[in-house]
Each structure stands twice: as structure tokens, then as C-alpha cells.
């Protein structure tokens, strides 16, 4: 039997990542990607892997987002 919460989280992940693929504004894509990483980290915490969850929240959602925003601020915001 699978937990309903896991199922909802997985569905949300897929929806979020599809919208990351479709959105044209890079900054919004990056913010959505941070959301994706946070949901992923929540899912991993629910799957009893707290180590990975903390690391993903700090590195995936935190540092990656900051670095991506830094890169976007230097290169331009709209995907041509």
C-alpha cells in the first residue's frame, strides 16, 4: 500500500517540472525549480531519508537557486 501523501507529492513534482519545461521566463523557471527541489526534499523526508532531504534542501534548493539567479543576472532573463 502506498501513502496517499507520497502520491500527491509525486504528481505535484511532475506538474511543476512540466511547467519548468514550458515557461519562457528564466527567472520564473528557476523559482519553480527551487519549488521542485523543495517538494523533492519533502518527499525524501517522507520516505525516511532525512540526510538526503536536508542536503537537498540546503544544496539543491538553496545554493543551486542562488547560483542560477547569479548567472541569470549576468546573462539575461528571457529565453530566446
Amino acid at each position, binding site marked *: 500500500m502506498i501513502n496517499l501523501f507520497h502520491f500527491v507529492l509525486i504528481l505535484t513534482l511532475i506538474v511543476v517540472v512540466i511547467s519548468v519545461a514550458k515557461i519562457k521566463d528564466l527567472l520564473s523557471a528557476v523559482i519553480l525549480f527551487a519549488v521542485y527541489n523543495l517538494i523533492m526534499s519533502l518527499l*525524501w523526508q517522507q520516505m525516511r531519508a532525512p540526510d538526503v532531504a536536508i542536503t537537498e534542501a540546503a*544544496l539543491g534548493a538553496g*545554493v543551486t537557486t542562488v547560483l542560477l539567479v547569479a548567472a541569470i543576472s549576468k546573462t539575461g532573463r528571457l529565453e530566446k
Partner: protein
Amino acid sequence: MIDIVVHPNIYYFASIVLFLIGFYILLTHPNLIKKVIGLNVMDSAIFFFFVAVGFVSDGGSPIVEAGSEALTVNPVPSGLMLTGIVVSVSVTAFALAIIIKVYQHYGTINVEEIYVVRSEREC
């Protein structure tokens, strides 16, 4: 709590779907930053796969209290994925650093335009 009947392989299925979407982003978007995001989606899908490998549906967190013998999930895959996440972040940081350099040299981060710039210079 509503009981829904879903096959427990949904974790593997979901990780494959996420991997493919990431690969799709990497392949189809000409923008380099979008490609980096696609790469990260692929990587985290693989980490999800590993976590799912170690997951036991009734197990607790692998934090052992003295004397307890409760069922826990397999800690090895999640331990490996710590390294995996760090590696993926360093690849991302490096890729972004090079992308900034690409922008400084070509004035664009769109792969198609970069090819145009390069072919103009060759002629």
C-alpha cells in the same frame, strides 16, 4: 485515511518520468541555463530512484537508538546520494561559470545563435 491501491513501483515509474522530462528539457531547449536546469532535474530523478531503492514502506528513519531493533529503511543508497547531490551541485556551478564566460565571448547563451556566430567567423 483513504486507502488507494497504487502499485508500489510508482516511485520507480515517477523517477523515470522525471528523468525523461529532464532529458527532454536538456535536448529541446536551446538556452544553456534551461539546459542546466534540465540536467539538474535528470540528476535529482536519479537520486529519487536511489532513495526509492532503499525505501521500505513501513520502515522508520535509519537513526538507531540504543537497544531498539525497529525496521528501518536502507541507509546505504541515501548515504550515496549525499555524494551525488554534491557532485551535481558542483557540475551546476561549473557549468554556470562557463555559461557566463560564453555570454561574455559570444553575447548570447542560445546554442543556435552561438553556432551562427561561430559559422560567421569561420567564413
